[in-house]
Structure formats: structure tokens, C-alpha cells
């Protein structure tokens, strides 16, 4: 039994969270934070697959999140919303159809990743970085010009779907889905990357020429890897859209991509556990620094000298976090975990889990 203790612990933790949310032990703010952690874990682990394991340098991960968010939002409004006329599906089917909608969003995002993965056959590093940035801007810009889904004003109406779920059973549905999809993401990536098939990705990272000549179909593996990463980011986007109930192309701009990149490089390139840890730390930091009281406390020596200066937490947050990161980079230039996993750092941990 000991060897499953970590698995059990995680399961208990997830169930505990759901119960706590259901019985209002944790308020809706904390719930949102927990869900954001889940979405950020999905974003950072999926980007880690490309930027960490495959060693590419793409800076436009939010583009795929954007595609996923819009596709699943539009589908969800078609199926259960009233915005485009009568709902296509009976409200009772929502519990089964909702994850399918998210997966379809992910699938379309996966297909859109071809925009980046096909050029990656011929080029890598900085040129691919540019291509991915250009794709990010392109997708945002294209959505801003689509007036039937709101254009730059954004798109809403997804809450109908969430309410349809609440009508069936009054519980923290979005939390439930976020937890499920987060586990699904980590499970899928772990299984893929630990198989000999997935190790082809690492081989490409370390020596692409050798990989190709040693019988790895590098182009195919690249496409698959990009598709997995983009697909999972698309699912994350769908969840995000349904939590907030509103999407705007500008929520997925280069700043969002930067967040995902920061999580990957803070955690350490190619380390799955590092990506998860850094997603938790990063989201926590963002939320802690959102509090005006804490920011005022941190800045009290400066505001004492300049009493007229009243910085807002929302702004200072984005000075302090990058500053902190720059300092972390100076002391640990390889990220929190380097390219190791948690089980490499603490080998005794291996006794407590089996993730097969």
C-alpha cells in the first residue's frame, strides 16, 4: 500500500478540495485561485514539452490557448447558450458533452499548431521563436477581425453551459473539470515522455541529426509533440473561458505567453515536476501580490520617503515578479529543478508512488 501513498494523497486532496468548495469552506476567490493554478499547471507542463523536452524556443503558447478557448466557447454557446438562437442540445446532456467540447477545442488548437511545427522542420531557435510570436499575433488579430464572435469586444455566454451543469447538480463543477483536466494533462505528458516513443523527443533536443540518422522520424515526432502541447493548452483555454465566462483576444496576447514561458524556465527546462512546482509558486505569487496591503507593506520604506507616491498593487506586482525572477536566475541559472525530476532529487520519494 505504501507505494501508492502519494497517489492516494493526491486523490484525497482533490476530493477534499471539491468538498471544501461544495460546502463553501473555501470562498469563491480561493476557488478561482485553485482553478488558476490548475490551468497554469496545464499551460506550463504543455509548453515544457516543447520548450523543455524538445529544446525548441517558442514564445507563442497563448495562441493555442486562445484557439481552444474560442472554439470551445463558441461550441458551448451553440450547444447550450441562447446567444445564437435555441440551444442545440438538451441541457441534461451537458455533463457528458462539456468535456467533449473542451477536447474538440483542444483538437482544433492541436491542428493550428501546424503553423509552428511545419516551419520547425527547417529551422529552430530564434527563427522559430519569431514564427511563434508572429503566429500568436496573427491568431489574436484574426479573432479581433471576426465580428460574429465579438471581435475585439470579446465573446461571452459560456456561463449558460456552467449553469446548465449547476441545474443538474449544485456543485463546484468547474473546479471538478479543472482538477480532472490537470491530472489528465500531467498523466498524458508523463506517459508520453517516459515511453521509448516519447524519448525520441529528448533525442531531437539533444542531437537532431543523430536522432534522424538513428531512425527517429523527427518531423513526425515534432508534429506530434507540438500537437500534444497545443492541444493541452487548448483544453486549458477552454476551461479558462468557462471559468471567467468571457474571452477577449487580448487576454491571450504575448504577456500570457510570457507567463507560460516564465513558468517553464523557472521550473527548469525539461522537468515535469519543476513545471508543476513553478506553476504553483508563480500563481501563488501573482495572487499574494494582488493584495494592496502586502504591496504597501513591502514598499513602505520607499513610500515613507515619497509620501505622495501611491503605487497600485496591480502595477507593482509586475515589477516585483520579474525582478524576483531576474534574481532567481542569477542564483539558479538552470531554474528550480534544472532538468531533473523531483524523484531524482529525493530518490526516497520513489517508494511512495507508482505512476504507470
Amino acid at each position, binding site marked *: 500500500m505504501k507505494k501508492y501513498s502519494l497517489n492516494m494523497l493526491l486523490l484525497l486532496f482533490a476530493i477534499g478540495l471539491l468538498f471544501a468548495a461544495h460546502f463553501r469552506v473555501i470562498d469563491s476567490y480561493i476557488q478561482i485561485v485553485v482553478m488558476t493554478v490548475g490551468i497554469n499547471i496545464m499551460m506550463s507542463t504543455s509548453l515544457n514539452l516543447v520548450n523543455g523536452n524538445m529544446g525548441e524556443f517558442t514564445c507563442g503558447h497563448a495562441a493555442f490557448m486562445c484557439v481552444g478557448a474560442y472554439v470551445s466557447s463558441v461550441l458551448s454557446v451553440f450547444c447550450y447558450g441562447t446567444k445564437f438562437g435555441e440551444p442545440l442540445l438538451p441541457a441534461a446532456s451537458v455533463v457528458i458533452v462539456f468535456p467533449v467540447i473542451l477536447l474538440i477545442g483542444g483538437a482544433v488548437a492541436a491542428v493550428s499548431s501546424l503553423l509552428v511545427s511545419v516551419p520547425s522542420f527547417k529551422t529552430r531557435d530564434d527563427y522559430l521563436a519569431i514564427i511563434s510570436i508572429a503566429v500568436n499575433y496573427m491568431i489574436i488579430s484574426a479573432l479581433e477581425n471576426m465580428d460574429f464572435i465579438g471581435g475585439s469586444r470579446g465573446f461571452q455566454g459560456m456561463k449558460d453551459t456552467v449553469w446548465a451543469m449547476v441545474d443538474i447538480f449544485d456543485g463546484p463543477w468547474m473546479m471538478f473539470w479543472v482538477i480532472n483536466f490537470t491530472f489528465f494533462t500531467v498523466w*498524458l505528458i508523463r*506517459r*508520453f515522455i517516459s*515511453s*521509448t*516513443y*516519447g*524519448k*525520441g523527443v*529528448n*533525442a531531437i533536443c*539533444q*542531437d537532431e*541529426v*543523430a*536522432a*534522424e*540518422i*538513428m*531512425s*527517429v*522520424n*523527427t*518531423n513526425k515526432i515534432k508534429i*506530434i509533440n507540438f500537437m*500534444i502541447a497545443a492541444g493541452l493548452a487548448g483544453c486549458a483555454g477552454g476551461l479558462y473561458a468557462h471559468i471567467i465566462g468571457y474571452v477577449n483576444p487580448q487576454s491571450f496576447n504575448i504577456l500570457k505567453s510570457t507567463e507560460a514561458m516564465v513558468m517553464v524556465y523557472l521550473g527548469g527546462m525539461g522537468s515535469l515536476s519543476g513545471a508543476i512546482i513553478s506553476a504553483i509558486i508563480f500563481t501563488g505569487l501573482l495572487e499574494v501580490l494582488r493584495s494592496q496591503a502586502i504591496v504597501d507593506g513591502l514598499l513602505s520604506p520607499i513610500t515613507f520617503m515619497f509620501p505622495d507616491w501611491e503605487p497600485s498593487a496591480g502595477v507593482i506586482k509586475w515589477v516585483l515578479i520579474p525582478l524576483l525572477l531576474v534574481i532567481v536566475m542569477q542564483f539558479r541559472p538552470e531554474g528550480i529543478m534544472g*532538468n531533473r525530476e523531483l524523484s531524482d532529487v529525493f530518490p526516497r520519494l520513489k517508494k511512495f508512488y507508482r505512476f*504507470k
Partner: protein
Amino acid sequence: MMAQTQTQAQAQPAPVLEIREMTQRFGGLTAVNNFNVKLEKNQLTGLIGPNGAGKTTVFNLVSGFYQPSEGRIFVNGKPTAGLKPHKVTSLGVARTFQNIRLWNDMTVLDNIRVAQHYWLGYGFFHSVFRSKHYLRREAEIAAEAEELLEVFNLQRFAGELPKNLPYGIQRKLEIARALSTHPKLLLLDEPAAGLNSADIHELIRLIRWIHERFDVSIWMIEHHMDVVMELCSQIKVVDFGQTIAEGTPDEIRNHPAVITAYLGDDKI
């Protein structure tokens, strides 16, 4: 042309490698000019020539890394034109590199395992859902890889990272990795480069042993004449992309063109 090749194949086993009138140009430079070769099964052949003669280019062309400007290459009777390198490898050509190119942050065992990528026989969904087929294949591959490490006497390094291993072991590992792709023809690009004389003696033994144990044809580029002369039954000499001589070691040793290429012309 295809039909003709096939009838030939039925009449007698196709040569492991056949290159017909292959030419490769880079811009204005002709790196390889009208190159012909026919390697029979189980042959140990040498390819020698001064630096910059186009030897590695020949290997790059054979392994599919470049497409030849002219001419055709057949591996076991099948044309390789237009094939990506991993496809060529799947036809039975494996190679090592002049500068060792191992995957340095993967364990030795993984290095061997990933080299079987083409023969995995399962895809993404099998790997994620851990189907029976997946588990069986992974077990087979692991067993095969461990066996390969064992016959190469590398099993004690199985969990190490290649970058932490001594140079000689890395060379050996690279050859083992190449053999893991089930080749019929093994291309060795300067296997003795950077080795000391004791290591070279061991290498000669190793190559001869591989040749017998794995039943492969070996084609090697080498600058150490004693290695080539001792191992190879046939030697091909190139200079400036041209084949200047071919024959047995004894013939090559006394071939006037070879002596000129290596030592220069004394008539100047």
C-alpha cells in the same frame, strides 16, 4: 529500371550497397565525382583518402543526409532517392560520426533503446494508454537493449549519462547504438580518431568481432593505415572527390596514384 533491379535481385542476392555514378556538388565545388561502389554481403571495406577528399560526404549521401546531385544509391537493391535519413536507416544502413554524437543527457540504456525508434511498432495512443501491445514491445526492446549492452560489456554503464564516460567507451557505445538499429551495413566514420594505440588494438578486435557476431557488412573511413590494412579486404581511395584507386590492401600499398596523393608528386 526497377524491374531490372528486381530480376537481378532474384538471380543473386543484391549487394548490400550499390552506388552508381554518384556526383555531389556544393555550389561550384564538386565534393564527390562519379563515384561507384558495390559492397557485397559481409564484406569489410575501407574508404581512405587525404583530408577533404569527400569521404564523409559519401557517407552523408549514403545515409540520406544529402541527396546526390546525380547518380543513384541502392541499399539491398532498393533505391534510396528521396528518402529521409530515418527511412534509409530502416533499410539497413547505420552509421557512427566523426565527432561522437551521442544523446548526452539520456542514459546509456535509453541511447540504445531510442535507436530502435523505427521498429517500435506502436504510436502515440499506445504509449499513452499503455496497451498490451505497448507493454510487450517495451519489454522486448528493453531486453534487446540490455542484451546488446551485455555483449558489448557495457552493462555496468547502463544507468550512466554518456557525457560522463571516457572517450573510448563513448566510441564503443556509439557503435553499439548504431547496431541497435538492426543494420545490414555499418558505416564507421573514423572510429579510431582520438584513440591511443592500446585502444586502437582493442578497436581492431572489436570491429572484427562485430563483423562476425552481427553478420554485417562494414564500410569504414579511417586515417590509421594499420587499422585499414589489417581489417579491410577491399580498399577504395578517393582524392578531390575522384576515385583514384581500389583493390586489396597490398595493391593499394604500392599503387602509384595513392602514394602521390598522400606524399605528393616528387617530379615538381
